[in-house]
C-alpha cells in the first residue's frame, strides 16, 4: 500500500543522532538532510523525537480466528501500530489452529485488509498443536502468506524426534522453528515460577529447568542437523547461559525476551491477581538481570512482545483458573527504554537492531527492519523518549485490558508510525 501524499518529517533524530529532516514519498524514504524544502509535502514536526525503523514483533497473538472477543487482526494490528510496529508475526494458536495454508492465508489477508501493519502468520509445527505429526509446513510456506516462522507456541514440541524432523524439514524453504521451551511433565499444573514465592503462596511451581532442559536439547539438535532454531520468550538466567554456550559452539540459534520478563518478577504474584500470570512465568530479580545482560551482549537477539490478549472474565478469577498471558504491544518500547536504554545497557541503534532489523531477518522479511536511508521503505517510528506516561488499560487500543503495567509510570511515547510512507499513528493517535 502506498500513498500519493508525501510527508516531510522535521527534526527527527535518526537512532538518537543529530536532528535532521526526512522526506517520505511513494512509500520510500526520498531524502534525508537538514532543512529539506516542504514543497507541498505534509509536514510532521518530530521536535527532536527519535526516528527508529518500524518495529517488528516476532511474537504476537492476534486471536483471530476463534477468539475475536479478545482481539482481532484489525484491533491487534492497530495496537501494534500504536506501539510503533510496522510488522507483526501472528502466532498459530488460534481456533482453528493456523496449521494449514487456508488459515494462514486468511490471517494474512485480514492483516492486509486492516492495513495498520504487515501481519505475517506463523504456521503451526504440528497438526492442531498436538505435538504428534507435522503440519503441512511446505504448503504454508508456498501460500501467499509465505510462512517462514513455524511454532506451536503455547505448547512445546516436546517430542525430540518430531522436533528434529521439523528443524530438518523447514531447511527446504529457509524456515525456522520457534520453540516454546516447556518440558510438559515438569510443568503439569504449574502456575508460577517455582521458588520461594510459589512455596509461600502454595501455587504449583514451574521450575526453570523445565525451560532450560528443552533449550539445551534443541540447541544440540539444531547443531546436529544444521538447522535454524529460534527460542521464544527466554525467561531464566540458566537459559541465557545455555544459549550463550550454544552460540559459542556455532549453533544457529536466535532468542527472544519479552518486555515483561525484562521488568517484572514473581513477587507480583503475592496479590494473586492473575494479570501477572503468564507463560513462561515471571521469574526472579536475578533472572531479570541476566536477561537484560543477555539482551545487551547479543546472547538474546531480539525483544518480542508475546502480546496475549484475554477478555476480563479470563483474568478476574482465581489464579488457578485464569488464562496465562499479558498484552504488550503498546508498552514494549517504553519498557525497553526503561530497562535497557535508561540503564545504559543499550543505545537506540541497539534498540533498532533488537526490535526491528534482527526480528525481520529471523522472519526473513526483506522490506522491514531496513536501515533508515534514502531509497529504503518508509517504515518508521517517531518516539519521544522524554515523555512519561502512567499506563492506563482503559486507553489501550487493544481489545483487551490485561496489561501488567497498569498504574506504572513508564518513559516514552510513540508519536507517529509510518507504514510504507502512510501514517498509521500521528500525534500519538491511531489514524
Amino acid at each position, binding site marked *: 500500500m502506498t500513498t500519493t501524499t508525501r510527508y516531510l518529517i522535521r527534526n527527527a533524530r535518526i537512532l538518537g543522532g543529530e536532528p535532521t529532516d526526512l522526506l517520505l514519498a511513494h512509500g520510500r524514504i526520498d531524502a534525508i538532510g537538514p532543512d529539506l524544502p516542504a514543497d507541498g509535502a505534509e509536514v510532521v514536526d518530530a521536535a527532536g523525537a527519535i526516528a527508529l525503523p518500524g518495529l517488528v514483533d516476532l511474537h504476537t497473538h492476534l486471536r483471530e480466528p476463534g477468539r475475536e472477543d479478545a482481539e482481532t487482526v484489525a484491533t491487534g494490528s492497530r495496537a501494534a501500530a500504536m506501539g510503533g510496529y510496522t510488522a507483526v508475526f501472528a502466532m498459530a494458536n488460534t481456533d482453528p489452529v493456523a496449521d494449514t495454508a487456508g488459515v494462514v492465508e486468511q490471517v494474512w489477508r485480514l492483516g492486509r485488509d486492516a492495513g495498520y501493519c504487515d501481519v505475517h502468520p506463523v504456521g503451526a509445527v504440528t497438526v492442531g498443536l498436538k505435538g504428534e505429526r507435522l503440519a503441512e509446513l511446505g504448503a504454508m510456506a508456498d501460500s501467499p502468506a509465505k510462512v517462514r516462522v513455524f511454532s506451536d507456541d503455547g505448547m512445546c514440541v516436546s517430542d525430540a524426534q518430531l522436533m528434529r524432523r521439523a528443524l530438518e524439514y523447514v531447511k527446504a524453504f529457509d524456515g525456522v522453528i520457534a520453540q516454546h521451551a516447556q518440558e510438559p511433565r515438569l510443568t503439569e499444573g504449574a502456575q508460577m515460577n517455582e521458588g*520461594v514465592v510459589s512455596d509461600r503462596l*502454595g*501455587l504449583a511451581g514451574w521450575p526453570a529447568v523445565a525451560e532450560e532442559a528443552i533449550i539445551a536439547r534443541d540447541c544440540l539438535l539444531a547443531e546436529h542437523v544444521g538447522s535454524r532454531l529460534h527460542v521464544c520468550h527466554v525467561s531464566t538466567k540458566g537459559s541465557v547461559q545455555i544459549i550463550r554456550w550454544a552460540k559459542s559452539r556455532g549453533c544457529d540459534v536466535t532468542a527472544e525476551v519479552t518486555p515483561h520478563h525484562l521488568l517484572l518478577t514473581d513477587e507480583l504474584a503475592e496479590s494473586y491477581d492473575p494479570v501477572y500470570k503468564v507463560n513462561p512465568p515471571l521469574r526472579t530479580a536475578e533472572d531479570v538481570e541476566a536477561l537484560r545482560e543477555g539482551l545487551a551482549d547479543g546472547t538474546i537477539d531480539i525483544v518480542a512482545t508475546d502480546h496475549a490478549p484475554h477478555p476480563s472474565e479470563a483474568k478476574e*478469577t482465581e489464579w*488457578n483458573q485464569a488464562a496465562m498471558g499479558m498484552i504488550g504491544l503498546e508498552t514494549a518500547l517504553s519498557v525497553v527504554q526503561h530497562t535497557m536504554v535508561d540503564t545504559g545497557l543499550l543505545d537506540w541503534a541497539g534498540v533498532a537492531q533488537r526490535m526491528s532489523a534482527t526480528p525481520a531477518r529471523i522472519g526473513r522479511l526483506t522490506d522491514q527492519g531496513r536501515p533508515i536511508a534514502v531509497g529504503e521503505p518508509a517504515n518508521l517510528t517517531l518516539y519521544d523518549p522524554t515523555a512519561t506516561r502512567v499506563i492506563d488499560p482503559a486507553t489501550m487500543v487493544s481489545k483487551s485490558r490485561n496489561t501488567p503495567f497498569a498504574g506504572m509510570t513508564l518513559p516514552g511515547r510513540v508519536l507517529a508510525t509510518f507504514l510504507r510512507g502512510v501514517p498509521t499513528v500521528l500525534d500519538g493517535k491511531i489514524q
Partner: protein
Amino acid sequence: MQHLLSAGDLTRDEALLILDTARELSQVSERSVKKLPTLRGRTVVNLFYEDSTRTRISFEAAAKRMSADVINFSARGSSVSKGESLKDTALTLQAMGADGVVIRHSAPGAARRLADWVDGVVINAGDGTHEHPTQALLDAYTMRERLGRVEGLRVAIVGDIRHSRVARSNVLLLTTLGAEVTLVAPPTLLPVSVDTWPCAVSYDLDEVLPKSDVVMMLRVQAERMHSSFFPSAREYSRRYGLDADRLARMADHAIVMHPGPMVRGMEISAEVADSARSTVTEQVTNGVSVRMAVLYLLLGGAIHRPGNQGEPR
C-alpha cells in the same frame, strides 16, 4: 487487620489476643446455654467450595454461639455449579449485606481474591495448598492448653508439607509465637525452597521424635504415590508413619496432634490416634472457641486495639 487470610498476617500480640479471647469464650461452650449475644444482627456467610463438614460445622457453631445469622453457601447444587464465577458470587454476597465471609476453596489465594471484591470481613478457612490460619490458631491453642505454652516448644510437623495448607500456616504462626518447628518428610514432599523457611528440616522421623514436645501428623493422600512422591503407602508408613513403637520413644509429656481427617494405618496407626497422647478430638473442640474469637475480634473490630478488647461476656 481487616481480614484473616494468612497466619503470617498476625503479629505476636494479635495472635496472643486471639488465643486469650478464645480461652475466655471457651467457657461459653461449657455452659448449658451455649450462647452470647455478641454478634446479634451480624450475618456470616460460610462459602464452601470444597466439602469440609468439619470446618464448616465448626465455623457455623462458632458464629451461632455468638448469635450471628449464618448462611451456608455450598458450591454444590448452587449457582456455582452452573458456572458462576467467584467474583459474581462475591458481588452477590456483597449485595446481600454479608458482614463476614468464611471461605473454603481449592484454589490458593481464593480468599485473598474474595477480599478484593467484598467490603466485609473475609476469613480464610483453607485455600487449596496455601493456608488454613484458623487451623494453626486452634493447634497453638491446643498446645497451650496441654503444655501451658507455645514459646520454646519443639514442634515436629510430619507428612506432606509441600501440599499442606496446615503446615504453611503452622510454620508461620508457631514461629511468630516462638516455637521451634522441624518439618519431617521425604524430600519429595518438601517445598523446594524449604531452606528459606524459618524452621528446621529432617528426613528422619526417628531422629526428631525423642526431641519433640509436639508431633503433628499430616494427612498423606495415598494417591500421591501415583505421582512418585513416594513408592508405596507401605513404605511411607514404615518410614514416616506414627505407630505405637514410635510413640513409645517420644518424651512422656509429648503430645500427638492431627488436623484431620486422618488416614489410619497410613500416617498414623489407630492405636496412636486413639491414645491419651492424641489431641485430635480436643483440637475439634478448641476449633470452635478459636473461631468464635476470630469472628468476635474481626467482626467486632476489637483486634485493632490489642489490650482493649473489652469483655466478651
